[in-house]
């Protein structure tokens, strides 16, 4: 199986339509609410697909239509828990048995080779999310147009090949497909959402290592404009009220300086050790300039039972004190083993006894972002036993690497380097300090200090740039063949005259 770097699926070579032998089964899941006519059109188009019928199953998820949908020869599941698109999708996919789940909206008309186009990619790699090419038409038979947002995004990103970690933003439920086990690994559909549930799912699929492939040959048609097209402002107003909680990558939805959010941007993972040294690290992580940072403390918490004990002579005293300290802090979680950071896009493993500077996390993420690095190793100190390292990991990179890693799981860094890139930096340069040398946390002051430091760095480099450009200007203005000019040389002439 090929290893795709970032979202550059251009290295994959899908077979031509009609020229290959499929083997994977697919379940087409259609959520529907009171649109029997649309569904019937969709089912008609589905019945005429080039993909082998014996590999296709259709599951209609009826989200409480009145009257209930009942079509001869069609498998219909009823949504029992909750209502809305999220609940319908989840009910449909739980009932589906195919190796691939293909989401389809009930009012879509597919070209005959639509499923085949999708399925080519799933035969090449098991971590593809294929996005159909949906055209909006007035009447069937027209060429149709893509939504403006889709068209612009595809154009700006070489059809998502250069979109990196943002490729999920084109994930819609109109006609997309994904391997069932990748969907399971990502946690399925969030049943509590009944709008933007497809965007949110796309985001979690990305964290699970997915590559997003928009296939221009997977043609589908939608008669009339979509809801987003008709009522764009209202849709955004609605969805942006909750998407910020679910998708930490949408940084512009999280511009509040302090408040908490459902999914943290960076999860800092600290092993519980001595009370004071552990506390120093955790407290520094909670005091940084990234307010949506959360901490997971890893330790044998289940050993902290409630029997009577000698409070001050507790053999698990430090562990208990740590639990006391953070029990009521919503940003600190307690786990027994190192957690999977998903759906947070980044995690940082911080050795106990080390403290972050106010801007450390923000700077590390900023370092990783431009080249979409999968791993930043921070060398903290070296001893006879080796180099002590803090690691900023990109969740999606390690999830994808795990699909290729052997049972021992020891190739992860090499795989991440190949598919995302890795780098090493110096801890001192990024504001890591040992607990006993760290400055006290000072709330906002720390933040402003970090900012001042950054600005000073910028001032310095800008000064150098000005000096360089000044020299360049001087050089360029010297260049043209000299015409006799009186101004600048007058002093020389005066000198020579007086001297001669």
């Amino acid at each position, binding site marked *: 199986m090929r290893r795709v770097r970032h979202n550059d699926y251009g290295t994959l070579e899908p077979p031509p339509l009609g020229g290959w032998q499929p083997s994977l089964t697919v379940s087409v899941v259609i959520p529907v609410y009171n649109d029997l006519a649309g569904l019937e059109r969709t089912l008609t188009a589905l019945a005429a697909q080039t993909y082998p019928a014996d590999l296709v199953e259709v599951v209609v998820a009826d989200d409480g239509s009145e009257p209930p949908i009942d079509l001869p020869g069609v498998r219909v599941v009823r949504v029992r828990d909750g209502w809305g698109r999220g609940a319908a999708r989840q009910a449909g996919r739980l009932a589906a048995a195919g190796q691939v789940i293909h989401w389809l909206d009930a009012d879509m008309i597919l070209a005959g080779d639509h499923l085949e186009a999708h399925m080519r990619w799933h035969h090449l790699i098991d971590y593809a999310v294929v996005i159909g090419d949906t055209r909006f038409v007035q009447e069937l038979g027209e060429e149709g147009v893509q939504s403006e947002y889709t068209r612009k995004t595809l154009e700006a990103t070489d059809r998502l090949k250069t979109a990196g970690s943002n490729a999920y933003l084109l994930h819609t439920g109109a006609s997309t497909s994904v391997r069932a086990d990748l969907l399971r690994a990502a946690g399925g559909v969030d049943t509590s959402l009944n709008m933007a549930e497809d965007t949110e799912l796309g985001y979690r699929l990305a964290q699970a290592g997915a590559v997003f492939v928009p296939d221009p040959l997977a043609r589908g048609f939608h008669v009339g404009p979509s809801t987003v097209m008709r009522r764009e402002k209202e849709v955004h107003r609605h969805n942006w009220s909750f998407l910020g909680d679910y998708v930490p990558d949408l940084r512009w939805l999280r511009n509040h300086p302090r408040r908490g959010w459902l999914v943290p941007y960076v999860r800092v993972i600290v092993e519980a050790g001595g009370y004071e040294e552990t506390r120093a690290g955790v407290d520094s992580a909670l005091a940084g300039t990234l307010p949506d940072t959360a901490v997971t403390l890893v330790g044998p918490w289940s050993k902290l039972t409630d029997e009577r004990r000698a409070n001050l002579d507790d053999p698990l005293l430090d562990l208990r004190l740590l639990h006391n300290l953070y029990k009521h802090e919503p940003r600190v979680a307690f786990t027994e083993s190192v957690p999977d950071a998903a759906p947070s896009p980044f995690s940082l493993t911080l050795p106990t006894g080390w403290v972050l500077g106010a801007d450390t996390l923000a700077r590390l993420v900023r370092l990783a972002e431009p080249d979409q690095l999968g791993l930043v190793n921070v060398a903290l100190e070296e001893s006879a036993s080796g180099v002590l390292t803090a690691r900023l990991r990109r969740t999606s990179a390690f999830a994808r690497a795990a699909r290729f890693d052997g049972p021992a799981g020891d190739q992860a860094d090499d795989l991440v380097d190949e598919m995302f890139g890795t780098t090493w*930096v110096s801890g001192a340069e990024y504001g890591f300090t040992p607990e006993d040398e760290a400055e006290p946390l000072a709330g906002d002051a720390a933040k402003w200090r970090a900012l001042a430091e950054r600005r000073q760095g910028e001032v310095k480099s800008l000064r150098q740039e000005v000096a360089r450009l000044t020299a360049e200007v001087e050089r360029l203005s010297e260049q043209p063949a000299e015409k006799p000019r009186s101004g600048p040389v007058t002093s020389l002439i005066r000198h020579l005259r007086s001297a001669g």
Partner: protein
Amino acid sequence: MIRQLMAEMPAARVFVAGVESPPAPSHDLDRDLLEPTGPQQVKEVLVVARTPADLRRAATLHKLLPDAERVVVAVLDTPASHPAPVPTPTPAHRWRALTELRVHQPKARVWVVDARFSASVPAGRTVTATARAFAGHRLDVIAAPAAAIAGVGAADWRPGDPNATPAEVTGPVPERVGAPGSDVVLRTLDPETPAAAHALHLEATPGSVPEGGGPAEWAGDETPIERPTLGAVSWERIGRPGMSGSPLADPDVLGEPSMIPPVDERLVNPQGFVTTPSRGTASLAERDGRWSVLLDGKVVTAFAESGGVTDAEVSRLRQIRAVEVDWHRAHSGPLAAVRVLAGLAAAGVPLVAEAVPRWAGALGDDLVALLTKRPDLSDDLRREEHSIRLRREALRTHGVAARWEQLGSPSPAPPLTSVLLATRRTDMVGFALDQVARQRGVQLEVILALHGVPPHHPDVAAAVERFDGPITVLEADHQAVFGEVLNDAAAKASGSFLLKMDDDDWYGPDFLSDLLLAHSYSGAQVVGTVPEFVYLSSIDVTVHRKQVTEQITSFVAGGTILVERSAFQAVGGFRPLRRSVDTQFQEALQAAGGQIYRTHGLGYILRRGPAANHTWQEPIGTFLQRNRNQWRGFRPSALMELDGSPRP
């Protein structure tokens, strides 16, 4: 500028070099036939050179200048990297008459040296002293026999050589204090004069004795080496009717590197090379009858009609990523065009070209092959590798000493370098000697100082036995002070250069020869490089760090110090310290007025081992700062030629 200077000195005798269409009355050292006339006295002399490199031709001809009481030397286009060219008067009697010296910069890039004397002195002395000041006050020596030069533009062949003897174009060479004026004669001829055409025809092969009749008259016993003036080989002249049978139209005659004047590597060299350029790829194409470097349709710099590249042009090209050669209507003539390319290549300007025409064969086969190789120059590292290959080849084929060897001068014995190798680790002796053994194109010996290591240890004995070359083994007590161990090793050395190498770093096969090359063009007493590439073995990462190279500097890495033995002795060797001996030595050398030059860093990889094995003073994080690029694993640059070698 030049008109103002002349207006201020109306009575002065004026000489110009490198100046296009100089105003009359002036003597053009490049185009006029100037011959020795015997002693002459004038009140004032004005010498105007376009660039420092042009001034060096005036220095070659200094004996042709009259005596004067006031000498003004002006250089119109000086790269910003030059400090003020302050001449150094020596106690020799000619300088005792100096009463006033003014060195000033009337405007950017212009330097004027104004010297007044209480009596008439040879004006040429001020010119040579100024030229020397532009070249770092080094002894002006061309390691070749004393040469006489005659004919228009002959100074091109001995740039910056005040020891050259100008002669009349028909001879003889004037005698010098009871000895013949020269050991070898070079004259330039224009074949438009029939006798000269005859001579050139017969003398197409350098050094051959003409058959019957002899060349154009030459009043002397010597057989002059004869070369066409560059004007004689213009496209216009070659294209004239009847020229097709001329040897000057024969690509085989033109294809000899020795047909073009050498590159003046003292000023036209890799110094100032920029590893991360800010501007794009330019083209070298015809504009108004000349080759010019064009970027986005604008002229960045144009080259003199003679094809002589100067430091001023090179400095304007440093921010350019690459220069693509357009062979169509190449410069003023084939030899001048080749001369431009040789100069640019020697300066390390990344040149690329489609197939090289036959008439450009004088570049030399290896340079032709490099030009057409076309590596991916958008990659900074590939670009620098290409530049290094070009400059090595060009400096070795077209440098002054190389050219005179091609013209028949005896080649001087290559200098012997003594490698000082001190080690405390038996297991590194073999590795370190392998790094020495792979050095090519150099003469070396090894002084192996075993610092508390028994020489009969099987690893050591086997490695010494395996080393194919002169090696002296020195034992030092475990307690001995490192600086003293190195001094003891230096005392056993017989080379004219000392090179301190480390026992665990990697050295490319051209490491030493590149240092020696840099020594020859920089003139610094110490030459070395910086750890641009570092292999961090404890995390298995190779880091490419941001470093400024190819410049005079205050520091080079301890494992790369190449020092003139005389300078080493003058400074008193290393301080008797256990550590920091390298830094201390470099500081002492600079305090004594010496210079340190840092050449490119692609031939050296510092190994930063695990902390347990070495007393590293710098934490590992230091090596991760100034990061330019990094790779997992051991990733030597192409010039290290370590492909396929096992991981360390």
